[in-house]
């Protein structure tokens, strides 16, 4: 270390600079995930089902454009949709466009059922509106998809190409559609766009937006906090340099690992900026607090020796807490855990070396600095120490009561991921999706895939009857707004074949088989094969549901699955799949995964504290002020109706390792200050270590709260609640830890 602070300074700085340049080049190239893939938990079985589904029925990521037009079913409205249809169809990457203007109905022809357009070519025909309304009344399957129940808005279903490896065409399609929406929404006409692809596009755009805003904002906030507390250029520049190096190296490593930023890992830069401050703050504060002029190198060596163990263990516990997220089954959370833990360790290594090296270029302060702004902090700290030592039992009773209330509220916590409501209420996707749901149809879809176990086609009357029974069960659910399957086609076909009026299924084996024979001969197979496989062995039931969170969607999907298996029996295989189903299922597993992760983090943090203090008593005391605030945060979430979701479920695991740092610093100083009397040791410790703890926590909290300016509610809640938990954890450290130390004090024989 002495070499580092003398002759080794310049080579060390050159090395750091070179490494930063290398990682910086890679960090600058880190991309943003465009398909949200890492937000889906890896599940080999479900992945295989989804892959089969995609191969059989194509992508389930169709877009839905709702059109509101004052004369929707009249010539002007139909012409508008026809024009829109043509313009959308010409966009590169659009495979098909389906709406009222090209919808086909089955009518009775000379030799049985034949296809006929719903609208026809003659759009100037004065009877158009009446004909169209009659056709829509005759074909209720179109309502809720191509036209709303109130006939005021229409749906345009846009099927897009599946181009693996091309990450740009979807964004280009959505940008083009959004331009269309903006250009055409006027004079009573309004367009609304939704769909999974839009969601992915918007998430990606919001991540890029957050990167552009949050990182500079975090730098400004941290700079201001550091300037306010240290009132010196070095107090600002050195911690920010450590922060910059940490973020650059970590993001560079992230890019080298072949990863792209997602909605969760986009938090890495601001979180790392905040977490990498602690070591710098402690080193600089010690440097400023140290008394006597002394030798520059000796003083720095003494500062490093004072803080290195506490800082190392703090970084270790923080890294352990974050690394515990690697047990998550969601790749995005795993990546966040791994790279934030790496970043924390990097920040320790850089902070404990770069800051002393930086300080070694400065003159040694002649006296301990007591900036005036620290005086009020010292008064607050002295008051807290006095309360905790003089009234330990009431203090514990008060904090215990809050904890009991929080624990009582915990069962009300709801595990819910709502991708649409993840976005702010003014986000176009949320606005459009909720509009479409209110006026046209549910924008979320669940897909169920049915096949016989023996691989036989599902063309028998029995199979169709079972499918009809399944459909009835699905439609009985309140959250379901519609279900599309081959049954709709079979009903139309039967009516057109028999020349009847009622929409009924083929009544017997023969007519059922013949209906499928007719379907086989249909020249336009593309739409048909979105409902049934080429060989008729696999059927898809697409269920449209209201825009509900996964707390409703996941059990609904499971209930429908059970009903499906009951309707079809053992001879059939019924599986649920689709992008939305995967999100719902992942959300269900999220809490289990995060409880496991938190348990692991807690156990490892306890082990590290045990190893550091080698005292069961101190280890037990250390746990109380750290678990308590996490329980409070859980209770607060339950009371405020904040759901457990991808972001908020990470709080406990991420925060345990961070908040325990204050306790480690506090107990380390307490051990040093203890001379046989807990009360005086607490008073000395609180006034001594309290200031850097306060500075560090204010910086951490404000740094985390920068995330509140993000675009996603889970990350906003994560930032807000993590910051809040840190505040409550510090409060616990200043009241509960001293109270417990005083109450459990057994003067050691050697101490006096």
């Amino acid at each position, binding site marked *: 270390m002495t070499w580092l602070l003398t002759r080794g300074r310049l080579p060390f700085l050159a090395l750091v600079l070179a490494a930063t340049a290398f990682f910086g080049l890679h960090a600058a190239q880190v991309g943003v995930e465009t398909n949200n893939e890492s937000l889906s938990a890896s599940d080999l079985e479900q992945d295989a089902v989804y892959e089969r589904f995609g191969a059989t029925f194509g992508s389930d990521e169709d877009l839905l454009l709702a059109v509101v037009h004052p004369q929707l079913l009249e010539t002007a409205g139909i012409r508008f949709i026809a024009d829109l249809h043509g313009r959308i169809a010409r966009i590169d990457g659009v495979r098909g466009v389906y709406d009222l203007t090209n919808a086909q109905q089955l009518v009775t022809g*000379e*030799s*049985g059922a034949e296809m006929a357009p719903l609208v026809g070519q003659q759009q100037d025909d004065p009877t158009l509106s009446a004909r169209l309304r009659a056709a829509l009344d005759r074909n209720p399957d179109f309502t809720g998809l191509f036209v709303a129940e109130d006939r005021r808005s229409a749906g345009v279903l846009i099927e897009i190409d599946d181009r693996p490896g091309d990450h740009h065409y979807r964004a280009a399609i959505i940008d083009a559609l959004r331009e269309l929406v903006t250009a055409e929404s006027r004079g009573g006409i309004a367009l609304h766009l939704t769909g999974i692809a839009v969601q992915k596009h918007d998430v990606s755009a919001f991540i890029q937006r957050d990167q552009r805003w949050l990182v500079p904002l975090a730098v400004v906030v941290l700079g201001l906090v550091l300037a306010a507390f240290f009132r010196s250029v070095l107090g600002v520049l050195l911690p920010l340099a450590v922060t910059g190096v940490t973020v650059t190296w970590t993001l560079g490593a992230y890019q080298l690992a072949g990863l792209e930023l997602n909605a969760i890992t986009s938090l890495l830069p601001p979180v790392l900026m905040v977490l990498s401050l602690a070591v710098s703050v402690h080193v600089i504060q010690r440097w400023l607090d140290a008394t006597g002029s002394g030798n520059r190198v000796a003083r720095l060596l003494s500062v490093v020796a004072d803080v290195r163990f506490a800082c190392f263990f703090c970084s270790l516990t923080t890294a352990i807490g974050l690394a515990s997220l690697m047990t998550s089954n969601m790749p995005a959370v795993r990546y966040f855990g791994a790279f934030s833990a790496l970043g924390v360790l990097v920040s320790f290594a850089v902070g404990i070396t770069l800051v002393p090296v930086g300080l070694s270029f400065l003159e040694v302060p002649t006296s301990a600095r007591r900036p005036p702004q620290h005086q009020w902090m010292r008064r607050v700290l002295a008051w807290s120490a006095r309360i905790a030592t003089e009234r330990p039992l009431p203090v514990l009773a008060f904090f215990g009561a809050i904890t009991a209330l929080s624990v009582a509220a915990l069962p009300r916590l709801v595990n819910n991921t709502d991708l649409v409501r993840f976005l702010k209420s003014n986000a176009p996707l949320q606005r459009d999706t909720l509009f479409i749901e209110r006026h046209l149809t549910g924008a979320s879809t669940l897909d169920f895939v049915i096949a016989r176990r023996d691989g036989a086609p599902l*063309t*028998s*009357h*029995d199979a169709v009857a079972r499918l009809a029974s399944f459909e009835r069960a699905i439609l009985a659910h309140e959250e379901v707004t519609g279900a599309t399957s081959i049954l709709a086609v079979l009903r139309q076909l039967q009516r057109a074949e028999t020349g009847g009026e009622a929409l009924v299924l083929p009544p017997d*084996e*023969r007519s059922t*088989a*013949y209906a499928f*024979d*007719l379907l*086989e*001969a249909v020249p336009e197979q593309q739409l048909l094969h979105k409902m049934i496989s080429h060989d008729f062995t696999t059927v898809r039931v697409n269920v449209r549901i209201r825009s509900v969170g996964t707390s409703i969607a996941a059990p609904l999907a499971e209930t429908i699955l059970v009903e499906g298996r009951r309707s079809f029996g053992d001879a059939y295989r019924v599986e649920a799949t689709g992008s939305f189903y995967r999100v719902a299922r992942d959300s269900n597993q999220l809490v289990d995964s995060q409880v496991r992760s938190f348990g692991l983090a807690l156990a490892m943090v306890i082990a590290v504290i045990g190893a550091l203090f080698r005292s069961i008593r101190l280890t037990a005391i250390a746990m109380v002020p750290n678990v308590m605030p996490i329980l409070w945060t859980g209770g607060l979430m339950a009371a405020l109706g904040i759901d457990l979701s991808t972001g908020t479920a990470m709080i406990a695991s991420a925060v345990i390792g961070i908040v325990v740092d204050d306790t480690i610093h506090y107990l380390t100083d307490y051990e040093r200050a203890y001379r046989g009397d807990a009360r005086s040791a607490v008073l000395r410790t609180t006034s001594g270590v309290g200031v850097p703890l306060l500075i560090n926590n204010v910086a951490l909290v404000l740094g985390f709260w920068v995330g509140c300016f993000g675009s996603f509610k889970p990350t906003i809640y994560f930032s807000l609640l993590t910051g809040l938990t840190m505040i409550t954890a510090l409060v616990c450290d200043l009241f509960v830890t001293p109270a417990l130390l005083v109450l459990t004090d057994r003067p050691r024989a050697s101490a006096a």
Partner: protein
Amino acid sequence: MTGLRAIVLLLFSIATAANADEALLDTVGDRVVRRAFVPSPDQKVGEVRIVRRGDAQVVQTLLYSKILSRVVAEIRKKEAANWPPGAPGHEDAERYGAALARVQEQIWDRMPRSETVRDRRQKMWIEFVLSPQRALVAMGPFEMQEAGGEVKVVKREALVVLEPSRDYVERNMRLIEVDAFGSDAPEK
């Protein structure tokens, strides 16, 4: 005596005609001159063959389709368009169309009703036969074997034999050939 002779002659002529029908529909010495899948090799519902049978020219159509009723309906539509009411041959076309529908229904009725039937195709043959003496149209069900994309008729039954006008048969044969082989169809 004259009456008895007349009856004997009538019976003889009927017997002769029946034998003549059988001979004209006997496929034993058939030589297939050309063949083409209809409507196309990709979406075939059957095939048209030009056959030499002794001194008779035969246009044979083998239909094998799950939706035979639709195929028959299409044929009837074409017949109606080619022989509109009032045009010579209209009544022959009507009779032919009715016979097609009748035979198709019989074939449909003979189909097993079980869902486990592997081959749901309904098979029907139609022949336009033109010999120097007679012009016939015959049709019925058949059974077939497929090997290497080629259809071999292994058994057939004539359910209907019509004897329309020679002009009707000749023109219909020509139209079928053009339909199946395009402008490449052999000239008579």
